[in-house]
């Protein structure tokens, strides 16, 4: 089987599993809803655009961590022995990456809609913001997928997952927050292309490293 057909089958499998019980999607959506609602109760109205921006990305970051925490554990560890014999590790990591970031993209857009309904949207340039969401959820989930694969080797404790992911996710998060402050108009938008390029390059680096390094994690 070629790499592409393997990836297609794996993504379809993940999608079917998700449709069947909707467990992880529902739990993430419920998480997002409750954190937006708690923020609404706490803030009532957000006056400063900086606060709007920071809160949005913090909620999205934790939604991403929630989304990933089920990714490698939801299937029993024994099933990986089965995959080991019939699939190449590259297609596993690429399919996980694509599927997870697609799911986060859906969650991100829904979060944005919910968030703007409650706090009002202050985005000046909506298409650019959606572009950031697209590349942002891809990059965030890329890093988190890799880190959760590493943490799953170490018995998958949640504390380890957060210590390992925090230092490596910060560069991406800073770029994202800076980019979205540009679309809000806190920072001058002239550097937008330069920063966007940094984000796309970061995404590529993450995917390239995941493809190269995952086969080593995979061996038992």
């Amino acid at each position, binding site marked *: 089987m070629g790499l592409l057909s393997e990836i297609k089958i794996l993504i379809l499998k993940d999608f079917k599993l998700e449709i069947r019980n909707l467990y992880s999607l529902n739990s993430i959506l419920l998480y997002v809803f409750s954190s937006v609602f708690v923020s609404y109760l706490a803030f009532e109205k957000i006056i400063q655009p900086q606060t709007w921006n920071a809160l949005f990305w913090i909620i999205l970051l934790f939604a991403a961590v929630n989304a990933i925490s089920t990714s490698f554990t939801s299937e029993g560890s024994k099933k990986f022995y089965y995959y080991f014999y019939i699939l190449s590790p590259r297609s596993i990591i690429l399919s996980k990456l694509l599927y997870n970031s697609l799911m986060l993209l859906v969650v991100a857009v829904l979060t944005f809609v919910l968030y703007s309904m409650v706090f009002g949207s202050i985005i000046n340039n909506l298409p650019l913001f959606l572009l950031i969401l697209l590349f942002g959820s891809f990059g965030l989930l890329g890093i988190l997928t890799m*880190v959760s694969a590493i943490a799953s*080797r170490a018995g998958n404790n949640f504390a380890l997952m957060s210590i390992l992911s925090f*230092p*490596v996710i910060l560069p991406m998060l800073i770029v994202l927050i800076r980019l979205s402050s540009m679309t809000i108009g806190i920072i001058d938008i002239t550097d937008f292309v330069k920063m966007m390029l*940094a984000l796309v390059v*970061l995404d590529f*680096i993450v995917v390239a490293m995941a493809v190269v390094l995952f086969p080593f*994690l995979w061996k038992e």
Partner: protein
Amino acid sequence: MKRNWYKILAVILLLYAIIAGFLVDVPETNIQDSMRNVFFHVGMWFAMLVICFYAMIYSIKYLSSQDIIYDIKARESVNVGIFFGIVGIITGMAWAKFTWGVLWANDPHLNGAVVSLMAYFAYLVLRSSIPDTDKAARTSAVYNIFAFVLLLVFIGVLPRLSENTLHPGSKDGNPAFGDMDAKMRYVFYPALLGWIMLGVWIMNLRIRYKVLQSKISEDYDRD
């Protein structure tokens, strides 16, 4: 002698850097003689970066050869790198207290330094959380490579893209070599080289010690 030339050079360069560093004329600025700290503080970061680069190379070598010696080398390089990072933060804090009036300022360089240290602490925690030696070696090697590349982006690229840094010279190219007085450069570059070589020397000593230790315990197990 072939393998030890850099140790002699390190001693000579650092002696020169310490003596000349306190004697060379520094330009009259508002930070006065504290400017001499540049010969010591910046060297720590360069030494740390070089040592952590070594650690990444050792991790790559471990993954391609599965030889446990390279895992010991990577771990000891990370330990020495952390040491230089902590010394870099302490020298930086002493300097920041004098120059900016606070021990800690919100600056991309400082944040980058702290986050890189946290990544390497996380590396050590990850190692110790896996009981199986080979599995720990492989997993932590993967994390080491992954983290180093992302940190390179964080400390190498992001500070240059941000406009509000307190460190001098970030706008025009390299933040470390900004607009420095010509006379100071004669001390600065040898000092950097000296610190890097000293770091590599310490790293090699620790690696030799740990490799010997592991060999002894292996022999002990066999008997």
